[in-house]
Structure formats: structure tokens, C-alpha cells
């Protein structure tokens, strides 16, 4: 029934005959975002696809459809089971979220259900404390956690998202145990908990934490990435602070298509979309909005997915 309706909708859009790579795309493309309108992923997806209709890009506009719910599971379930693999239905992935969810189970997708196209952004997790917190470095926070096992409350956007993974890695690297508090309202609610002093610390997106720091509400103690970030040149990485935390928790955002999409469509998409993401116009709008950009092509994304699958499997094995 659902396929029938979806099919009818597509027919309305004017789909006729099999797709030829040279004429693809001949109508507007739909891109599914599995988070709500106005969130960071939705906001960035709209910026990076704004030039899609240009002649030197795809030549067809990309329309964003939001299917939020259950931390992204609703949208990705829909994409894996019901989206047509014809190149006219794209989706945004948030790694490591969907990979971690697939490992934990209860969803109808894993990394093999999708084909990566290109990556546009990388938002590392950062460790934040309130502006008036006694902690001024990761060493302070870890010392407290060692003296009071399980008592250092740390907020994050949910379970099995980048923030949670960063918290698990910090626990593992420092040999302590923090009390990770997942919030129902996503990153914004987790940040509010830090600013209001409901929790002692938080793990949040670099882009949101950067804004909160600019507003004078939080201190950022460390970045969970391999290198320091251009927005925050004075903030050390976790490794510099003596914690062996790699880039596994970095929130990568990019575009993918369902498995079974014709190879020539994938080739065309991965070539043009990667160029589109790297354009000057996109970079300018993204950096104005405080959204960190990181363009990767199809092969690089595929490698990143495989690496995450490996590390997350080990990390989540005991949970």
C-alpha cells in the first residue's frame, strides 16, 4: 500500500522510463533529514544543497523532507525499507549515530543498507562546563571523577550518539566512570542543563558550544578530535590532555542513497555533490553560521564508515 502511494507520488513528479545516466537528474530530488526542521543537521542540509539547481551542479533542486523521531531511527528505517533506489531519494547520514544504532539493534538498517555519496561536515564533540565551574581543565574534571566515581554528572544529547560515545571513550581512557545523563530534548536541552547548573559538565557539539562560549555561558575544556579546531585554536584536544580519545565521536554529516541505486547514478552524484559541497558559496554560508565544514568523497566516507563500525563494535560490546 505504502509503496503504491509513494509510487503514485513519484509518477506525479513525472517519472517515465528507466533512468539514463546522461539525463539524470531530469526532475527535483528529495533529500530526507531524520531530524526535525531547525536542528543543526536540517539547517546545514539546507545550506549545502542550495546550489544544487545550478547548471554546473546537478541542474535540479534538492528538496528537504524531515522525518524526525527516535534519535533518527524513524527516518533511517524509512529510508532503508521504503525509499526507491532511483537516485531521486537521498538522505542525510549522521555518523556515528546510525552506525551505533545499527550495532545496538532494533532497527532495519546497518552500514550495508546505504551507499555513501559525499560528506560535508564534521562537528566534533567537546567537553563543556558552566562559566562559573571550578573545573578549568580536563585534569580537574578527571581528578574529581576519580575521587567520586559515578558522581560527575555529564549531559549529552542521547544514548548511542556522538556525545555518548565520547563519554564512553573518556571513561575508558581515564579509567573512571562518569554519570552520563541523556536528555530528551537533544543537544539544546543538554546545553541548557550545563548552563543552568543541573549537571556538572556536558558533552555537546562544537558548533553549539562555540556559540554558548561566545555568549559567555560555558567554558570549553577539550575537543574530542585528533586535531585542534579552527574555531577554537586555544582549546586542546583530548589527547593533548592525556586522554586517549580518537575521532570516533565526531559527528559526520553527509549524503547517502539506498543500496541498489544504479552505479552510474551513484558516480554522477558522488562527483557533482562532492564538488557542490566544496564550493566557495557553501563554505561562506557555513562558516558564517558557525557550522564546521569537512568535505570528503565517496571512498573516504566508505572508509570512515568501516572504521567506525570496527571501533564502535568494540566500545559498545560491554553495554
Amino acid at each position: 500500500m505504502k509503496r503504491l502511494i509513494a509510487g503514485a507520488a513519484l509518477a506525479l513528479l513525472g517519472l517515465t522510463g528507466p533512468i539514463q545516466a546522461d539525463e539524470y537528474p531530469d526532475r527535483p530530488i528529495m533529500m530526507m533529514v531524520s531530524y526535525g526542521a531547525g536542528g543543526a543537521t536540517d539547517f546545514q542540509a539546507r545550506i549545502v544543497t542550495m546550489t544544487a539547481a545550478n547548471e554546473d551542479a546537478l541542474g535540479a533542486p534538492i528538496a528537504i523532507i524531515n522525518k524526525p523521531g527516535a534519535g533518527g531511527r524513524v527516518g533511517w528505517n524509512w529510508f532503508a525499507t521504503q525509499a526507491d533506489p532511483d537516485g531521486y531519494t537521498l538522505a542525510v547520514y549522521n555518523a556515528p549515530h546510525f552506525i551505533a544504532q545499527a550495532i545496538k539493534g532494533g532497527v532495519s538498517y546497518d552500514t550495508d543498507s546505504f551507499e555513501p555519496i559525499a560528506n560535508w561536515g564534521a562537528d566534533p564533540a567537546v567537553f563543556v562546563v558552566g562559566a562559573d565551574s571550578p573545573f578549568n581543565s580536563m585534569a580537574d574534571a578527571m581528578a574529581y571523577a576519580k575521587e567520586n566515581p559515578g558522581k560527575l554528572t555529564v549531559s549529552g544529547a542521547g544514548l548511542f550518539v556522538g556525545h555518548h560515545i565520547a563519554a564512553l571513550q573518556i571513561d575508558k581512557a581515564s579509567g573512571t566512570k562518569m554519570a552520563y545523563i541523556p536528555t530528551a530534548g537533544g543537544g539544546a536541552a543538554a546545553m541548557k542543563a550545563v548552563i543552568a547548573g543541573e549537571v556538572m559538565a556536558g558533552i555537546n557539539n562544537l558548533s553549539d558550544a562555540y556559540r554558548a562560549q561566545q555568549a559567555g555561558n560555558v567554558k570549553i575544556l577539550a575537543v574530542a578530535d585528533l586535531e585542534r579546531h579552527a574555531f577554537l585554536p586555544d582549546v586542546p584536544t583530548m589527547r593533548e590532555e592525556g586522554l586517549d580519545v580518537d575521532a570516533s565521536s565526531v559527528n559526520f554529516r553527509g549524503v547517502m542513497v539506498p543500496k541498489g541505486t544504479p552505479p552510474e547514478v551513484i558516480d554522477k552524484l558522488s562527483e557533482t555533490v562532492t564538488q557542490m559541497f566544496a564550493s566557495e558559496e557553501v563554505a561562506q554560508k557555513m562558516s558564517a553560521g558557525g557550522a564546521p565544514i569537512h568535505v570528503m568523497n565517496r571512498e573516504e566516507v566508505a572508509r570512515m564508515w568501516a572504521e567506525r563500525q570496527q571501533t564502535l563494535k568494540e566500545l559498545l560490546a560491554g553495554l
Partner: protein
Amino acid sequence: MEFIYYFGDVFTPLSFMLLLGGTIGGLILGATPGLSPTMAVALLIPFTFQLEAVQGLILLGAAYTSTVAGGAVSAILLKIPGAPANIATTLDGHAMAKKGQGARALQLSFLSSAVGGVLGVLLLIFLTPLLATWALAFGPSHLFWLAILGVTVIGTLDSASVVKGLLSGCIGLWLATIGFDDVMGAQRFIFHPSLGGGINIIAALIGLFAIPQVLTMFAKGRHDNGAEVIEVQRHSVFAAMRELTTRVRALSIGTTIGAVIGLIPGVGGQIAGLVAYDQTKKFSSEKEKFGTGHSEGVIAAEAANNAMVGPSLVPLLTLSIPGSPTAAVLLGGLLIHGIFPGSDLFDNHPDVAWTFINSMLIGQILMCVFGLYVAGLAARVAQVPQSVMAAIVLALSVFGAYSVQGSMGDVYIMACLGIGMYFLERFGFSAAPLVLGLILGPIAESNFVQGGMIADATVGRASYFLTGGLNMLLISVVLASIAYSAWMELRHRRYTTKEEAYA
């Protein structure tokens, strides 16, 4: 007083055109079932790409204010609340429209929206620093008690009996558990893939309110088609203004509750209207008239949901935290122009900040003027024959439920809930307590779980949830509310038994 300095910017030709366009467009979008204020603002964001920051925000600010008020149109005339904010408006507003007083209901709703809205924005202008600390004061334990306070209202809200009200509230609470739970990610009652994301509140609203009404209209058949054409009474705007001045109590309770509750991140906007409605009913001398088309109900609900607009932006503008989904969309609109809300906004871009706030102030008044203009025309909807009306409402319901997330799953959910509600209504249950349960369930649950986790790591559950000034205050209000309901129920029973005895 800085904001007066920037008033001129609102009245430059392009800005004012955008303000007008945003207001009229917002009214139309708001009146369309399924298009919540959040979605309306999100739809407009791409248009602001081409505009300057100030102009873009004028458009968004005007659209936000007028979509909230526009939701009253479909709530009153079609009994389809466009967003949770309009549920309480439906209760008395639609009853008034059925009596042919649609024009009066709409006029009152736009006038009280404007009064509440202007006061809300003035609060935003003058008391922002104070309000910001208030918004931060609510932690998980307080939000939990606030949700419980909402639950205590369930029994008395729009129901023949307290027991039936509580029962339908429980059904709502159960429906709220469906889907992946927000905090732990556990799967509950997912019998069908479209339930994975839980029950979407807007789809549920449409189903619970509009569908039973459609079924009733169909069930009546064609026989009494002509007999039931409602005579739509004309109603002058001045009469509505005069009436508003005699309903100061409803207006002030609505405005105060809307402004105070609207401020609380993540909770306020959804329940402000219902709580205001319930409180006005408790303080009113004509309690028994509520639910039968009493103007106080409409005034309180609409004053509350527009009074919430200004304060709901406080956490965004001062702390850079979006407190509601609509605020999150507005944040996107600011970021696209490279403007970070927070102290940076007022220090470095005062023109943007104040013009945006001013545009909401003027937008409230424009919204009221246009609203009053169309009220008389729109009310004629009631003259449409029932069989045609049923078809229109059904089509709008399906369209509305589908457009929330572009998903047929939501349409199925809407249809199922609607058919279920049709039968429940026959047994004297009503939709409002059910919806309140559906809204409050997740708030109470996630804050209890989250607060419990914090408490386990720190001071322990008992002292986390039961000590502290704000907790104590909320708990005592909860107890007072329960005691009040119990007392009213007992008194009511004594009276009825007496009457029966006399008879």
C-alpha cells in the same frame, strides 16, 4: 527604551511590505490544519536567504506571531486545532461557532490574542534578564512536578465526570508511551513501523478533534440536511471590544499564565492554553457555562497562547538555547546571516535584535486588524451544508496529518485515533483530557528518568525531587489542585443528591 530608537526600521517600505506579507501569509498558514507555527516558519526560512538579516527576521517574526493566532480560525470554525496551543480554543470556540456566533468567537480570539501578544512582547523587551534566570530555574525535577500539575487538571477539563476525564487522560498517557522512548531508546508498543516515532501530536490532535465530528456529520445522513443550516449572526467589532473589557479576569489570567509558562523551555507552549483555560474556569463565577460556548474560554486560551510568543524567545535571545521547536527554526534563520544569539546579538547587532522584536509588536497589531477584517467572512463557513462540510473537514484532516512529516503513517494514526475517539465520545469521554495526557506523558516521564539519573549520581532521589523552594512550591500547588477538584466533586455530589431528594 532602546527599542523605540529602532522603530523606524520597521517602517521602511521593504520592511513594512515584508511585515504585511508575513502577517497575512502567517494567518493563512496558521489557519491551515497541520501547518504548525514551527513548520510555517521553517517554510519561510529559504526566502530569507536572499534578504538582509533584519528583513529576514521581520518576515519570520511576523509569521510566527500571526500563525499562532491564525490557528484559532480552524480551531473555532472546523474544530481542527492546528497546534497544541489551540486545543483550549476549540473547546468553547467551536461550540460558539455551532451556535452561529463564529464571528464573535473569532473577533474575541483575535482581540485577546493581540492583547496577550503585545503584553508578552513587552515583557520580552523590558524584563529579558529577569526572565532568563526564571527560564533556567526549571530543572528536571521541577518540570516533572509541572507535568504532574498538568495531570491534576485532567479530571476537571471538559468532561462530564471526573472519573471519565481521568480515564481518558490515562488513555492519553498510554498512547504517549508508544514508540522509542526518548531517553533510553527502549521500544514500546511498536506494532507497526509507522509507530516507531511515537504518536505525532499534531496528527493526533486532528484525529481526536476533527474526525469524530466528521463521522457524526456523516452519521446524520442526508435527511436533516436543510433543516440544520445555522444562521450566522453578524457581530460588530466594537461590541467585541466592549465585551473584552468586561472579561478582564479571563484576559489577565490568560496573559499571565501564558507569559509565565511559555517561558519554560520545552514545556510551556504546549500547555499554556490548556492551563489558562482551566484556571480561568476555576476562578470564574460561571463555571458551568465552560464548554458550551462561553466567551471567557476563548479569551483565556487565545490570550495565553499569544502571550507565550514573546517570552518563549527569551532563552534563545539571551542564552542562545532554543527553548521551543519554533525558536530552533528561528535560530537557523539567525545563523544563516552569521548572527549568534546571546549577548553578541544585543551588543553588536542591536538593529537586528530590536527590529525583530519591534516587528513582532507591530505584527500583533496588524494580525489583529486583518483577523478582525476576515472574521465576519470566515464565520460564514458554518452555513456550508453538513454533508459538504464533512467532506471538506475530512480532506483537510488527511492533508494536515500527511503534511506534518510527509508520511502516510501519520494519516493512519490520525484515522485510527479519530475512529476510536468517535466511540469514546458516545460514552461521554472527551478528547481534551486525552490530548493533555498525550502531551504531558513524555514530559513527566523523561524528566523523571533524567532527574532520577542525576539524583542517583548526586544527592539521592528523595532530596532531589522533594526538597528545594521551587519543588516545594510546585508540590503544594499540585496538592491544592487535587484538593480543589476533590472538594468540588464532593460539593457537586451533595447538591445533586439534594436536588434528587427534593424531586
